[in-house]
């Protein structure tokens, strides 16, 4: 394969866009040194090549993955794209090269550097998604409920089935402040939609009362002879705390200090991620 010494791809940041980068790389037998999404910082030293998103090319690449590698590989690629690892694009491109030349055997190559790195990224995404099954807190506003999260990875599509199933008869929203998207659910339908800014309204008295009740339960359940802050922080990392009433209610000062400006979205067009 011909390696261009100073080539970088730029694409629109969508999943289809990345698949088109893969298409391009195969078509011209060239491997870029980097793949940048629109809006992310770009290396000045590299010659940039804009890759147009083309649904037909993207489809061809996507269909070939389960065909030439395996179904699990397709899932890995999707989840890898939602992960927060820097340079995920190059990782996915390298993984597909590895997969297209090794076939389904690639899924056993756990010790290969590329596969290991991708697997690790996906593992982190899965772990974070699992955390959010428990660490999401809804606020009830009359007939609707809403929650705010600030995940590192793009977890909404991973956790959506769980919450839509659990709260089938409820109307709710989970707002992902990092990626500026929201999962909106009403009985019978749901969607993940872009949402630039959403500030939760003040809770009413009933809601505040249940928060206090929950805080007093949280306080009472810990056994003081077994106090273990390190263990708690490792099981429930501090970055989750500011959206948990049981943690903020008792440490208002600490919580205020943790407040940071929302991170720039990694991806300017999150809707395309699906």
């Amino acid at each position, binding site marked *: 394969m011909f390696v261009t010494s100073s080539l970088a791809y730029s694409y629109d940041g969508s999943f289809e866009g990345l698949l088109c980068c893969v298409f391009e790389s195969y078509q011209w037998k060239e491997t870029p040194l980097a793949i940048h999404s629109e809006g992310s910082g770009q290396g000045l030293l590299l010659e940039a090549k804009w890759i147009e998103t083309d649904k037909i090319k993207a489809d061809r690449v996507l269909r070939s993955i389960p065909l030439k590698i395996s179904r699990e590989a397709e899932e890995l690629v999707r989840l890898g794209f939602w992960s927060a690892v820097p340079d995920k694009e190059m990782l996915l491109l390298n993984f597909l090269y590895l997969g297209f030349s090794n076939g389904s055997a690639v899924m056993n190559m756990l010790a290969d550097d590329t596969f290991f790195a991708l697997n690790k990224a996906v593992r982190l995404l899965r772990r974070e998604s699992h955390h959010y099954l*428990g660490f999401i807190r809804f606020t009830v506003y009359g007939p609707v409920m809403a929650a705010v999260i600030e995940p590192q990875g793009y977890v909404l599509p991973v956790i959506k089935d769980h919450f839509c199933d659990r709260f089938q008869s*409820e109307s709710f929203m989970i707002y992902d402040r990092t990626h500026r998207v929201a999962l909106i659910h009403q009985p019978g339908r749901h969607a993940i939609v872009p949402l630039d800014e959403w500030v939760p309204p003040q809770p009413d008295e009933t809601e505040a009362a*249940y928060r*206090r*009740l929950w805080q007093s339960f*949280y306080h009472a*359940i810990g056994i003081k*002879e077994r106090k273990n*802050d390190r263990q708690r922080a490792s099981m429930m990392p501090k970055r989750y705390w500011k959206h*948990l009433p049981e943690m903020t209610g008792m440490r208002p000062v600490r919580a205020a200090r943790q407040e940071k400006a929302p991170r720039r979205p990694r991806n300017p067009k999150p809707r395309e991620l699906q």
Partner: protein
Amino acid sequence: MDMMEKLEILTESAKYDVACTSSGSQRSGQAGSLGNAVSFGICHSFAADGRCISLLKVLMTNGCIYDCAYCINRKSNPVRRAAFTPQEIADVTMQFYRRNYIEGLFLSSGIMRSPDYTTEQLIAALELLRNEYHFRGYIHVKAIPGADDALLSRLGTLADRMSVNIELPSQESLRRLAPDKSKQSILQPMGLITNKITENSTELVKYKHAPRFAPAGQSTQMIVGATPDTDYQILNLTEGLYKKYKLKRIFYSAYTPVVEDSLLPSLDTKPPLLREHRLYQADWLLRFYGFEAKELLDEAAPNFNPLLDPKCSWAINHREQFPVEVNRAPYEMLLRVPGIGVRSAQRIIKARRAGTLDFHALKKLGVVLKRAQFFITCKGRPLEGLKVGEHTLLRSLMSGQELAKFQQPEIEQLSFFDDSYLAALPEAGVAASFSYGG
């Protein structure tokens, strides 16, 4: 008394029950209902003691007609008493669940009036949740020893998991500390639940819509350190319970003194957390690693070594079975290597289909080489530069961090190679007898 005060009192009284999981039941949501259950369980928060909170863990009441010496709710202990009505329990569960604070309810109770009456109250609360509010989340309920079989059966169809606490691991300890309970009164409901679960699984084969009886199985709890029972006794009992009563989980609770009693360790005794930790490690070895209790402990050495985890102790005592060739060893043997867990053993099996593994690869698969290095070879060779002196071996196998975390008063004064603890290890010169092919 307002709801807040009640909740505090009845949580305080329930918190020494260590069962916390919400795993084992898989149930999807339904239109018109609230909630589902997922088999892997979900932790919703972690308390200041680092333990998982997944269920609203409360007592129906902390009033009790019994007088068990170790229990904070014993009749003769002057604590504030409170009681929930079934309605209050159901309401707060629904409200917490909706906000995603919890995965469900853990409901236990002190004994009011009689075991039957208490069970009826528990049933009333669960019926409200299941039938009125159409709650499909997780429910763990305590079976009350001495209650009528029919009532316990009814309770089991409303819950996901049922448990009867053994509390004290021997009949003698029970007699001394919990004179109102007997071995029989505990094992009888336990046996009933086991039978119901078995019966139910055959019913389910015949009738798809047969009501499920405690689908997440049965668990129990033992208090460690309140009585002179040894780890060996506890582990044997554990093994028996897993086999005979098909329990899903057994929980161990380091005894935290809550009441003054001449029969009990004094109030300033620290809970034996390290001992509890070792028992959980051994419990894991029984359930997932194919070990038997008699391999881990015996009459001669009836307690776990505080310095080494049970798997390392076993490996050092069985060095004739090592080293193991990672590229060929069967799964069962990989599992017995210190530093290789269930996950990494599975990954090794998978990865070696794609090529031969070396030490560098093992690291990526999650093997803890610090411990495993002494027990494995890759392509017939030990790790390059590996020095197996007696001290390096033992030092590597002991986890300093773990020790510090569970620092116990009696170990504080201990020098690193104190005789009394090393005596429990195999004879000195351990390492010298390790031999590696190649």
